[in-house]
């Protein structure tokens, strides 16, 4: 197993907010872009407030999961743009795999429970 993957595994599991922020950064976005994307991705079920996002970003930097990717100018204001680092990409991949596994295993159990209920 590569060193990068080991390092990525240490960052798991992600909190729900972190998960949404990271999967939003599959494409570079500024802060508001992240918030909008999370709302859209989750079909309005999850919202990330600005206080939560502002607190989460420095942690993700510290963990080496995201990096600055220049600035974007909108309405005369410059906004920092963020992107996933190599480590960040590994973390997203591993977390998605982990959740898929959990969901698959859970589905088997859920089906069994449903059948029990029918009987």
């Amino acid at each position, binding site marked *: 197993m590569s060193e990068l993957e080991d390092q990525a595994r240490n960052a798991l599991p992600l909190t729900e*907010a972190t998960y949404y922020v990271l999967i939003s950064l599959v494409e570079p976005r500024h*802060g508001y872009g992240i*918030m909008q994307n999370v709302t859209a991705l989750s079909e309005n079920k999850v919202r*990330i*407030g*600005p206080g*939560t996002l*502002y*607190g*989460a970003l420095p942690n993700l930097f510290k963990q080496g999961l995201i990096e600055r990717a220049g600035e974007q100018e909108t309405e005369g204001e410059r906004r920092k743009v963020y992107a996933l680092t190599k480590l960040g990409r590994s973390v997203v991949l591993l977390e998605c795999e982990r959740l898929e596994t959990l969901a698959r295993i859970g589905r088997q159990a859920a089906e069994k429970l449903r059948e029990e209920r029918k009987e």
Partner: protein
Amino acid sequence: MSEKNTKTVIRIFWAWNHGKEERWLSRMARDGWHLAAPRGIYYRFEKGTPADVVYRLDYQNPKKADRKEYLNLFGDAGWDHVGEFANWQYFRTAAGDGPSPEIHTDPESRMAMYRRVLGLLTVIFIAVWVPAITSIGRPQPSGTFWVIVRLSQGILMILWIYAIIRLGLRIREIRQGRTGR
């Protein structure tokens, strides 16, 4: 007949109870009094049209380079920055039909905010009160004045410890998922 269009109100809120402060500011806005400047326990209001406004407080001290980014983030999300006092940032937005919008949307960031407040209170406590405690028992100047000084020091210290404990309990409450806000 000059109707006063500003007023200052003095009120004290505990740090863990800023929800109460937020609701109070909303009630003031409904009466047409809009917060203009928070200055600790002094709140300056300006008279305007009564409005349904949601207030939220954040405890954050963005560094100079980050400040714009911080305020832009809130601005983009629809929050006006009303002012700040001692790292408490006051935001407001028009109330919608749904539930009150939140600036903190997960327990982790709520806990992190209270930890920042707790951290500062603890640092000040160690810097100011520990030396004061260690001076107990040493010869002290006598006289009514010094008795009053020591008495008020004592009361302040008890309040300080109380605040630290309450903040700690609040963090524990959030960790155990017993409270949303």
